[in-house]
């Protein structure tokens, strides 16, 4: 049973298993374990970023495709839903239409980029994707009549997902059961299912071919696998999953703009999450996304606390001043890449 759900791909390390179970339970019961608007937002962001990062790992870690356009597909999904909700009003029909149009566009764009440029060298492909993604970001900010330009779009989501909706009158474990809880569990459960689907894909016969192409595309072709076809399909699946993550982000945030979806900063974040977690294992994306987003949101608070606690000492409080949190985030990443070149998952698995 568990074997089928996880597609036979177990964490293969006791510590990793424990960490994953802790993350899963924390996310599954986040509204009750960590009540509060901010912590729920962080939990939701971790959920859809796990999907986004895992879909990137499907391409980078499993197939060896270096793409820099992943945020574009994330944005296509988010904008699809945002534009539909903005123009058609807060209905599930709009969500569905926006999702379908977004997914179709994502797959078509991924297929076109793939078939035209996956034959070429990896570096050149990365450049092509970067160019396309930049062009797309410019396009999105220029077509402000449709996309809201730099300001993005704020819109209403179906009522059941809003704070105004009451799931039940009484509080449950002291938590008000409103539409945000429904929205959170929508994001959580869809993310969880998508993660399991990707886990199945990488452990399928298709996924094994992707790994063979990553390892040695020349040899893989000599066995009869057309590398360009498999790479293109992997890109399409990655794009599809990224767009679905975008849909979840759009529904959760009730806002879609260039900064939350299309920016190159997010592309860099995704890359870091994959590398920190460990390439070539989807569990790495769970760890990478969780650690990164927690650090992004709470490192500043933590440093504030450290700074206050050490106020009596010379220099130290200055060093840990909350304004320097980005510096420490950077230091953390350099250290983690230096000490765990195969990512956290790679490190845990090799030591077990």
């Amino acid at each position, binding site marked *: 049973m568990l074997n089928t759900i996880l597609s*036979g791909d177990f964490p293969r390390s006791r510590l990793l298993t424990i960490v994953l179970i802790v993350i899963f339970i924390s996310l599954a019961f986040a509204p009750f374990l960590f009540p509060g608007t901010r912590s729920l937002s962080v939990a939701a962001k971790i959920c859809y970023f796990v999907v986004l990062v895992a879909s990137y790992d499907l391409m980078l870690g499993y197939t060896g495709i270096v793409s820099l356009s992943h945020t574009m597909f994330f944005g296509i999904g988010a904008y699809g839903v945002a534009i539909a909700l903005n123009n058609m009003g807060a209905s599930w029909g709009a969500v569905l239409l926006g999702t379908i149009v977004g997914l179709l566009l994502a797959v078509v764009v991924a297929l076109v980029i793939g078939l035209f440029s996956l034959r070429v060298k990896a570096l050149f492909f990365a450049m092509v994707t970067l160019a396309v993604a930049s062009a797309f970001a410019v396009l999105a900010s220029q077509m402000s009549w449709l996309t809201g330009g730099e300001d993005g779009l704020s819109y209403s989501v179906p009522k059941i997902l809003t704070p105004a909706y009451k799931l039940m009158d009484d509080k449950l474990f002291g938590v008000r059961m409103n539409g945000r809880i429904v929205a959170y569990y929508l994001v959580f459960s869809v993310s969880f299912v998508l993660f399991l689907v990707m886990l199945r894909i990488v452990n*399928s*016969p298709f996924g*094994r071919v992707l*790994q063979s192409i990553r*390892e040695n595309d020349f*040899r893989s*072709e000599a066995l*009869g696998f057309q590398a360009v076809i498999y790479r293109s399909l992997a890109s399409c699946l990655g794009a599809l999953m990224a767009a679905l993550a975008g849909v979840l982000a759009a529904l959760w945030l009730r806002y879609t703009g260039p900064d939350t979806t299309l920016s190159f900063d997010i592309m860099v974040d995704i890359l870091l999450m994959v590398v920190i977690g460990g390439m070539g294992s989807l569990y790495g994306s769970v760890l990478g996304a969780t650690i990164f987003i927690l650090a992004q949101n709470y490192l500043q608070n933590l440093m504030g606390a450290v700074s206050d606690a050490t106020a009596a000492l010379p220099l130290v409080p200055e060093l840990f001043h909350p304004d320097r949190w980005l510096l420490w985030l950077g230091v953390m990443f350099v250290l983690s890449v230096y000490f765990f070149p195969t990512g956290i998952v790679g490190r845990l698995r090799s030591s077990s």
Partner: protein
Amino acid sequence: MSMTHPTHSPEEHPVLETHGLTIRFGGHVAVNDVSCAFRQGTLTAIVGPNGAGKTTYFNLISGQLKASAGSISLYGEDITRLSAPARANKGIGRAFQLTNLFPNLTVLENVRLAIQAKSRIGLDIFSMADRHVELIERAEHYLHRVALIDRARDTASSLPHGDQRKLEVAILLALEPDILMFDEPTAGMSVDEVPVVLDLIQQIRDQGDKTVLLVEHKMDVVRSLADRIIVLHNGFLVADGDPAEVIASPIVQEAYLGMGASSHV
């Protein structure tokens, strides 16, 4: 320029044929106007000094290189324009001279992928690869044949060189092709490992339904295994015929054995 083939009647249809096959790299002609037919159930050895164009000729047949001129036909069908994967799917299997494996995958997975290629389930994204037990069993069968079954769970890169060569052979066998192309399969193997591979090649030849092409330097190996020898020299096919006859011919003595025999035998 070439001798006529003595053992087969001309009306018998060849499995594989090259017509005037040529490839140029800039000014250098690596394979020059090579016409040759290969018949089912035969083992043809391709010999010649280093740089004669043997591996390049192989690359042209299996599709890693595209011919500058000439054509290749398989069962009478022109395959000159087909890609390497398309040719593999049509039954041309290839083992490489420089070990060419999936280094970070397990030994079993290396072979299982070849079986999977043959079974055409590569686009199946919803089943679990490990549940296709029959593919795994067949992969294990081939690992038994090359005596690597004990290393099945290790990564390919962790194998010593000789075992990597055997794995290369196992991958080719697992593809179950009609045409098997071995490019110096025993190169770099220790003396006691060589017979394992040679016995395998002999078994395949004795089956009688496969067509084997073998690039090999060791003359004793060639003499005992081959039904026929062709000699390449500077990209030209310079001799073609019965092993004893070819080895004895003056052109081979001069072109190949004269310079290479002492270092290879």
